[in-house]
């Protein structure tokens, strides 16, 4: 009797021991044979986010992020976008998860994303999605350098590092090309630019915005460069006093066209150089306001507007 009990006990111990060892081995093997299957990135708000190495399904809730994803060749892995993601055209046919600011958490969850790319306006959504266990990476660069880093980060996350590096190279090349042609341009040849975001109230762009950087890189001077806020409201007198050489307005849906005729009707504007000489131009709003791969194109477009003789 006792011998049977001891034998039984020994067998039980053996089984337990083997199971424990196997279990330890298997859990340690989670990394797989080819290295860890997650990567850790630091997004633009400083958060450390751990995402799966091969992201199959990504959701973008900001149009700029959508453009980045498609530019680096990750379009096939995008499962859903926001309603304003209209570029490239393929993005428009993807399932929508909401407006630019109001994304529906339900819709995002239903798409079973491995990662969600958001921007800083989505504070509430980010908190909510994280609470539901969904990884969110916030992409919102403040400068061209930040933009390059972010494109490369997105490339790493989506498994398209080479394509991402390529996109960054092309952008840098475009900017270098513009800088090259503008080399040695004296300060007085840099036109003062009035970029009109809105007519009533009269609103322009402050020094912290991309648009300001685009103007500067394109060899211009932003009239509102001394402003304290992102989108300052400027007074008529100030604009007239600064006498801009060029007026640029963004073309977006329902935009009202600015012409010399309409602008002359504003008090004092008929005396402005830009109005007198008809130097009023439009630019694609999406291209210039999205921190994405097309921002370099915006610089080229603006350079052509400001220095037509240098950029034929």
């Amino acid at each position, binding site marked *: 009797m006792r011998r049977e009990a001891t034998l039984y006990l020994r067998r039980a111990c053996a089984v337990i021991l083997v199971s424990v060892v196997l279990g330890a081995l298997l859990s340690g093997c989670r990394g797989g044979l080819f290295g860890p299957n997650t990567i850790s990135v630091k997004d633009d*708000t*400083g*958060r450390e986010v751990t995402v799966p190495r091969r992201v199959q399904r990504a959701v973008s809730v900001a149009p700029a992020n959508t453009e980045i994803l498609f530019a680096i060749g990750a379009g096939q892995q995008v499962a859903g976008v926001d*309603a304003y993601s209209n570029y490239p055209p393929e993005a428009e046919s993807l399932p*929508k*998860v*909401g*407006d630019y*600011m*109001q*994304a*529906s*958490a*339900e*819709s995002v*969850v*239903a798409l*079973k994303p491995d990662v969600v790319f958001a921007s*800083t*306006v989505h*504070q*509430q*959504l*980010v*908190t*909510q999605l*994280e*609470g*539901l*266990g969904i990884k969110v990476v*916030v992409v919102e660069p403040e400068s061209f350098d930040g933009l390059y880093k972010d494109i490369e980060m997105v490339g790493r996350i989506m498994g398209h590092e080479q394509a991402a590096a390529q996109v960054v190279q092309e952008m840098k090349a475009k900017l270098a090309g513009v800088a090259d042609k503008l080399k040695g341009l004296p300060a007085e040849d840099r036109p003062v630019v009035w970029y009109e975001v809105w007519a009533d109230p009269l609103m322009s762009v*402050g020094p*912290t915005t991309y648009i300001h950087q685009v103007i500067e890189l394109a060899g211009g001077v932003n009239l509102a460069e001394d402003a*304290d*806020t*992102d*989108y300052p409201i400027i007074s008529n007198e100030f604009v007239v006093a600064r006498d801009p050489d060029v007026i640029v307005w963004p073309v977006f849906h329902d935009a009202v066209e600015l012409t010399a005729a309409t602008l002359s009707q504003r008090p004092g504007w008929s005396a402005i150089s830009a109005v007198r000489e008809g130097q009023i131009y439009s630019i694609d709003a999406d291209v210039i306001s999205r921190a994405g791969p097309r921002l370099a194109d915006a610089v080229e477009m603006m350079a052509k507007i400001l220095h037509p003789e240098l950029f034929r």
Partner: protein
Amino acid sequence: MLVLLPAAVLLAMAVGSVRIGVGDVVRTLALALARVLGTGGQGGAPAPDQEVLETILLRVRLPRVILSCLVGAALALAGTAFQAVFRNALADPYILGASSGGALGAAAAVILGLPLASAGFAAAPALAFVGALAAVGIAYWLARRAGGVSTLGLLLAGVVVGTWASSLLSLLIYFSGRFLAQIVFWLMGGFGGTSWWSVAAALPYMVAGAAVIGLRVKDLNALSLGDETALGLGVDAERSRRTLIAGASLLTAASVAVSGPIGFVGLMVPHLVRTLVGADHWHVLPGSAAAGAVLMLLADTLARTVIAPAEVPVGIVTALFGGPFFLWVLSRRGRGRLLGGGR
């Protein structure tokens, strides 16, 4: 009213930007309940689709449904209390500046960038809560300094604080730059980011506020008759008022913190209920709570489905549909019953 509530809840759960049938809803809820109670529940992870279903229903929709009921009830109760305390038919939960104070707090949180810095914890509701209570506190203190917390004094102080906070808010909005849209959306009110955390955060204050008011039903009735009459009935008007205001402010602050300032419900629901059940607060209080819950639930359900997957701010829905609905009830029951029988 109470019968309507569970039906409304089920409907709200089944409806949303993602299509889920009522059968699935019931099954998921039953499974979850079984798991919670420790009975049944199969071993192993649920199938991926089931998991998505569960996430949506149990972690996105259910807390939202519950929160909208809680906030609706809270605002209705607060409105009832304020209307009795101030003997003013136009009193609403924000009459002492709670919404402006809360908005100021939330805007400050958004601009300071606090929410994303601390993992998961959202500073906006916390600051909104503090802001709302601070506004009411300041209004009360101002009224006391001006000499006595009479109803008129309180109302005036509330207006002063509210206006002052609003102008500060406007200034913040002007300098908010890229945060403008977020702040403006918060001001319109809504249940967009609701999670179980929001429910847990709001619940203790709502229970506390409701208890404070509920325990003083008699006082509410007495105060509606005027200070002298109240005194004659053995109710210390000033103390009672103070406690009731505190309770109602807790309810209001908690609501504003988790869902922004949502108007109309606090103002109209008490009137609605009074035309249906009379002026005795024994009936009006529970009625208001239930009616407020149902109304807010239906409004939020509509708000998140009508232009799905985008959302309409709840406050717009409550005002747009609530107004005509209220007028309809009035016309059916006769105008003489406003405030419970011609006062």
